[in-house]
């Protein structure tokens, strides 16, 4: 009987239409809520800043630094120095490409948050060209940018505007096992062929499973590794006007032939073509490799007894070069900048945060966490301190090479480099044909192609 009474309700067309309208309205509401989630969260933060006694809350998008709580340490110190500004940390993905994809989706969609985001040093051209980051040089005086170490500000610029405030710098280092070299009575290598022969010797003598591990996978990190060999061989990848590739040269051939020979000679395991930073580092800290090419943080990781079996046995040196070149070899520049969302509603607070993060206190905190400070004076203080983490002492003695990130099409240029270099490393194509394919793909990328 219940059913019947219900069915009469259902059959009333006006009421039915009404119910449909309600369902449609509800789903529309749900949808609109999905679409504007970022806006609503930002409006919430705006109202928070407006009400409680002039306290502004800004959202900081940052991927994890070193250990857990490092970002919070900086935030706590900042908030203590600036009681009128609260920082809300948004933990960004650790994968740089995923990180960028999420940022681009949010900012191009008009989201007002995150207000400040930590981004890779290779992003300024792409973000600047597409209006996804605020040109900081319009809001900060030239004196603000004068304090940074040479090269960092030009690396953060695109078409005359500075888009990123350098937060911490990074570069490639050679990590080696002091104990193994002592056992085999070998010196710390200063040239690439020397490193190769020492690695082969150590493996042949059965002292260690692998000689030299680095980042040979088909991804951005391989572009970094390749740039180091190429620069030490005297080569470049693009011309100064970013109009044509220069990778297919004698230097390119020398660099890539050597990289491939690391694998064929047995100095590096074949699996190096599948390694990214974590795999290379874990091989080294497990005691399974004599040499490692990695970034600054690998020092701290290698000295952490919880995860490392080689605590106290590791030495750090600048990367080697090729014979006939003045040493040391080139290290690729990495690191992270702080960028400001062009849609931010709290520009003054954002700039205050940027200034504090490039101040002596924050930069010293980062240095103590074994990140290379970007502010020249702080960097020099660490370089001359004997108690500073070794990479920070050595950093001042290295030569640096940037990636060709001055073009908005850098991502496609880099893909052309790493995919073809990786193919040559795995032996699926010859070194010469890899370079010629890379060259033509880079030219197409520079022209805005796929």
């Amino acid at each position, binding site marked *: 009987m219940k059913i019947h009474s219900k069915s009469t309700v259902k059959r009333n067309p006006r009421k039915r239409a009404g119910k449909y309208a309600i369902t449609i309205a509800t789903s529309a509401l749900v949808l609109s809520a999905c679409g504007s989630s970022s806006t609503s969260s930002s409006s919430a933060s705006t109202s928070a800043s407006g009400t409680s006694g002039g306290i502004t809350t800004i959202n900081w998008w940052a991927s994890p630094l070193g250990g857990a709580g490092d970002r919070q340490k900086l935030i706590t110190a900042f908030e203590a120095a600036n009681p009128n500004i609260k920082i809300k940390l948004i933990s960004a993905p650790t994968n740089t490409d995923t990180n960028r994809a999420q940022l681009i*989706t949010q900012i*191009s969609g008009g989201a007002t948050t995150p207000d400040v985001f930590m981004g890779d040093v290779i992003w300024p051209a792409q973000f600047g060209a597409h209006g996804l980051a605020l040109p900081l040089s319009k809001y900060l005086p030239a004196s603000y940018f004068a304090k940074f170490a040479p090269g960092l500000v030009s690396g953060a610029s695109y078409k005359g505007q500075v888009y990123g405030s350098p937060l911490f710098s990074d570069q490639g280092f050679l990590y080696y096992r002091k104990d193994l070299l002592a056992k085999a009575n070998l010196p710390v290598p200063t040239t690439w062929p020397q490193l190769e022969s020492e690695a082969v010797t150590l493996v042949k003598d059965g002292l260690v499973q692998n000689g030299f591990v680095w980042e040979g*996978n088909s991804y951005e990190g391989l572009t970094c590794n390749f740039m180091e060999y190429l620069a030490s061989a005297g080569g470049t990848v693009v011309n100064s006007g970013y109009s044509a590739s220069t990778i297919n040269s004698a230097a390119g051939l020398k660099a890539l032939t050597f990289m491939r020979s690391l694998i064929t000679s047995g100095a590096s395991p074949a699996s190096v073509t599948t390694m990214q930073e974590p795999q290379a580092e874990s091989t080294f800290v497990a005691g399974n490799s004599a040499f490692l090419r990695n970034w600054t943080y690998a020092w701290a990781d290698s000295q952490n007894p919880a995860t490392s079996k080689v605590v106290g046995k590791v030495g750090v040196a600048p990367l080697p070069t090729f014979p006939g070149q003045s040493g040391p070899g080139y290290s690729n520049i990495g690191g992270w900048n702080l960028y400001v969302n*062009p849609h931010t509603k709290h520009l003054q607070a954002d700039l205050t945060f940027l200034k504090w993060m490039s101040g002596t206190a924050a930069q010293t905190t980062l240095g103590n966490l074994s990140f290379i400070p970007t502010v020249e004076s702080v960097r020099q203080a660490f370089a001359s301190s004997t108690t500073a983490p070794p990479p920070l002492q050595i950093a001042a003695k290295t030569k640096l090479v940037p990636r060709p990130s001055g073009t908005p099409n850098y991502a*496609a240029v880099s893909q052309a480099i790493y995919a073809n270099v990786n*193919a040559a490393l*795995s*032996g699926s194509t010859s070194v010469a044909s890899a370079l010629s394919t890379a060259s033509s793909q880079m030219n197409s990328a520079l022209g805005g*192609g796929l």
Partner: protein
Amino acid sequence: MVATETKVTEATPTSKAASKKLRDRNQILLARLGWRFTTPSLLVVGLVTIFPISFSVILSLSNVTLSGNGFSLGGFTFNNFSILIHSSEWRYALAFTIFYTIVSVLVEVILGTMIALLMERLSGGRGPMMALLLLPWSIITVISAELWQYIFQGSYGVMQQIFSAVGLGKPVFLGSPTPAIISMMIADIWKTTPFVAVIVLAGLVMLPGDVFEAAAVDGCSGWVMFWKITFPLLRPTIAIAVLFRILQAFGIFDLPFVLTGGGPGTSTTSLAILGYKAMFQNLQFGPGSAVAVSATGLVLIGCLSFLKVFKSQVNSGE
């Protein structure tokens, strides 16, 4: 509600025609109720599938520029498709995607049908077996791809240990193109064969038993029975399984994204990976959308022609 209602109608002594009428009306009411419940989700599905598909078609035919304020479309152009046709990466990704789809779907259908035939003969324990079989399929691809990466890992991977134990050296599976493509296919076949098996099993269980009895009386061997009776009758079911699999395999993204990142080189870069790179790494939304549209168009043509061929086969079999 339905149960109560049937009890009521059965308990009431009415004529057969009247009870049928009542049941029909209730069917209509239930259908209406169903529509009402599904309207919100249908609307959502429409908005999240039909809108993005049309929008990417528009993007692929426009001069797209991305700015801090979203896309701006600068007029109609075929330039994005011309970029594709002249791009060796796109041609490779297309060839790879087609090759990968054909091989993995073929193997999955053969294995899945064999498993289904076996399962159908299981008298007891079919339930637990089914549950066990469905485990790989129920694991999210991102997770299973991570598991396979451990298996195929180049310095401590399980597969390498097995190869080295039987004296086959220490191959790096994900380090060169052919082994990497095979590894990726194995991971996919492991995951989706159960899906095919379950669909085919459902079809097998529905087959009429009398045909098989008659064939047995006529002295047909198992082999003949399979090819002359089971397979022709199963064709529509297999067709559905194949269709579903082609649609999924052609758009493969998660497996290569996690397992190989599209490498070594670009050897496992599917159309979906290429489109992702173009759009979200290079910010080339025009050419990137063209990649997506080309994949959608091709899979649509492929499926429609497959259905057409299949239909005529079914008709000729009757």
